[in-house]
């Protein structure tokens, strides 16, 4: 079966950790993960600048590792990202901001990618809030 996952809260939220564990279980059970779409505060997951305390679980790093290992299509909503200060090189240049903090494997794109994944998947499962 094909899954699409949407993440609405940042990496330090329990919801993000649950989303990651769910994504891992999807693959472990032999299902397909079409896309993970990051929206609202979920865009912070893609920030290269997240520094997690030593005694806390680094979910952002775990997301990154998971996406790279399984070549997951990880898309971050550009409008939500800009609003929250998560920019890649191109956007940092375009808006003349001093730093880019979104790099590979994350991709900036529009809500169309969320809709496309929702249309193609057998299930869209969203995680957010707390």
């Amino acid at each position, binding site marked *: 079966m094909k899954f699409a996952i949407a993440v*609405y809260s940042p990496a330090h939220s329990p919801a993000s950790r649950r989303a990651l564990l769910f994504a891992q279980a999807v693959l472990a*059970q032999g299902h397909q993960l079409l896309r993970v779409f990051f929206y609202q505060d979920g865009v912070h997951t893609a920030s290269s600048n997240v520094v997690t305390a030593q005694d806390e679980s680094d979910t952002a790093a775990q997301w990154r590792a998971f996406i790279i290992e399984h070549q997951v299509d990880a898309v971050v909503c550009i409008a939500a990202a800009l609003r929250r200060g998560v920019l890649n090189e191109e956007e940092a240049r375009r808006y003349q901001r001093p730093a880019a903090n979104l790099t590979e494997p994350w991709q900036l794109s529009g809500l169309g990618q969320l809709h496309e994944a929702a249309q193609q998947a057998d299930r869209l499962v969203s*995680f957010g809030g707390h």
Partner: protein
Amino acid sequence: MSTLHVLSHSPFSDQRLSSCLRLMGHDDAILLSGDAVYALAPGSEPWASLSSAGVAVFALAEDARARALPGNPAVELLDYPGFVELTLAYDKVNSWL
């Protein structure tokens, strides 16, 4: 089309559970995750509403365990593989974000 409703907010501080119960059909189910598992507190008002709603109730085992909530024969506790399977047992998943 049946819906699996996923909740993750505490029912004591939040309206999501009561709104969910208002909108749910009898073919639907609820999965409690995160702080929403506090709805399993025995003798509580949320548990009373939940248990009288006549719908299947599931909970993430790790969240119930983390909060030392007692086991409940009416509620199946799931691990993540079980969670994935549950999403396939219903036609769609609606998370109350």
